[in-house]
């Protein structure tokens, strides 16, 4: 059962990656157990716990490689934690690895139908929303061209148009807003505002302080895979900022 109706509940989640090529063998399991590490392994996420209520807008901050994308993948369900549990009680619209769900050889039209269908959109819904998605992505002239002939900007626009039109209560956005020109960015922002206004839950991973402050009320700060801070966005950003300048100072002192 969920804790007081939390829509996402993460308990002591841990994800372990192997730096090398070998995978855990039976010997490793016996010698080191589930909590131990081989020398070439590291924890991308460790002891991460938090709850999310429906309607919250959460920003995830941290330096690159500190576990943000991994956390989003856990919530999207495309990665399974090695420790702990991730409980998600509502549908998720993932804008992560955003162009990954598209097939190069198919036309844009077929791709939209495929991706939308795989994410759970019914055929009638796809038919209804098709023109809207195409219009949002501004690719009316390219609907029947193979996906591989689109520019990377167009690809992102199509992907964003499709995934943002999924009627799911939770949206995950992974650094996608960094792509695209100003006009498209404004469209994206407007769309996200719309989605939030009807009570969707937002998870945003971004390096842009403006984006984070604009959309998110709560922040999660990940450092070396651990949840260092979980609180109001402004405080989390301040903590992140002070940590960054502290490490730059340390570097300078070390070099000097």
């Amino acid at each position, binding site marked *: 059962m969920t804790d007081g109706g939390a829509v996402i509940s993460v308990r002591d989640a841990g994800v372990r990656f192997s730096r090398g090529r070998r995978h855990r063998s039976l010997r490793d399991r016996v010698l080191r157990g589930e909590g131990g590490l081989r020398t070439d392994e590291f924890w991308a996420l460790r002891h991460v716990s938090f709850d999310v209520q429906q309607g919250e807008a959460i920003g995830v901050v941290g330096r690159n490689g500190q576990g943000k994308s991994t956390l989003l993948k856990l919530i999207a369900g495309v990665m399974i934690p090695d420790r702990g549990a991730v409980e998600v009680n509502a549908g998720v619209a993932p804008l992560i690895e955003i162009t990954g769900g598209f097939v190069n050889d198919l036309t844009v039209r077929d791709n939209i139908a495929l991706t939308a269908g795989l994410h759970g959109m019914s055929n009638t819904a796809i038919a209804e929303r098709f023109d809207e998605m195409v219009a949002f992505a501004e690719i009316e002239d390219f609907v029947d061209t193979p996906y591989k002939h689109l520019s990377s900007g167009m690809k992102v626009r199509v992907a964003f148009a499709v995934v943002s039109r999924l009627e799911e209560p939770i949206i995950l956005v992974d650094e996608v807003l960094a792509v695209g020109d100003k006009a498209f960015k404004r469209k994206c922002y407007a769309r996200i505002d719309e989605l939030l206004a009807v*009570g969707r839950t937002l998870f945003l991973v971004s390096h842009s302080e403006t984006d984070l402050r604009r959309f998110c009320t709560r922040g999660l700060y990940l450092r070396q895979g651990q949840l260092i801070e979980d609180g109001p966005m402004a405080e989390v950003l301040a903590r992140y900022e002070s940590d960054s300048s502290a490490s730059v100072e340390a570097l300078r002192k070390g070099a000097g």
Partner: protein
Amino acid sequence: MTQHPGGVTLAGRPTTSSASARPRRGAPGPMERVAAVWRRRRAVRLLVGRDLKVRYASSALGYVWSVLEPLLMAGIYWFVFTRVVTRSVGEDPYIVFLLAGLLPWTWFSATVGDTAKSLHSEAKLVRSTNVPREIWVLRVVLSKGVEFLLSLPVLLFFALVTGASIGWQIILLVPAALLMATLLLGLGLLLAPLVVLVRDLERIVRIVLRLGFYASPVVFAVPDVPAPWAGLFALNPLSGIFELCRAGFFPGQVHWVHVGLSVVISIVVLLVGWTVFARLERTVLKEI
């Protein structure tokens, strides 16, 4: 925890429309996995439909192409084994005997080859959509299964042309297809994650399939195999399946021992394959 300043309007509150949203907790047990796949059957239909569309609608000859390959194979084997080599195996009309083994074999080898690399070749889709991962294997089994069914008219055509007798046992094609699907699903679930983790396996699978053609009673029947080896061939789950496929034209071909072995082995392979798949899923998702 702060509330979003925009608030929540009940009228506009989005409800989960997709079939995918169910509480996701920890590791799902076997029954949950089956239920999860069933719930996303629309996704399976979508993918199979896409495969068939690519196969049949994209080329000018379409349907003809898909029967041409087994037809040509059957043609050359028939020629070699009736005109070139002195044949003392199988039954007459040989073309019917041959096709009744070659069509299911085509389903088998095409599926094993494709399921083995299914997770690897669809890596992008696998890592960006949250569908039960079994679907990538199931989709190949069903796509090739439909192609098998659509190639059966060729078999019937030759049966009529050569005047072969068609008995009530033709209905045994149904359990044959079900058994084959079970076996293929098990093998696919077993191989797909292993191929992601050990890339060389893909090549090994290809080689084994080529050998498997002669290790299976496609051009001959199990009783044709000399005494000490016949037992080994009987252990091949395809033996029972092929006999069921041939039953409609050659009722004497069915040996219920072989069929029984097929049933047992197919079910065991399915259980083992699914267990291995579930165990390796986590590692595969990191690797993809």
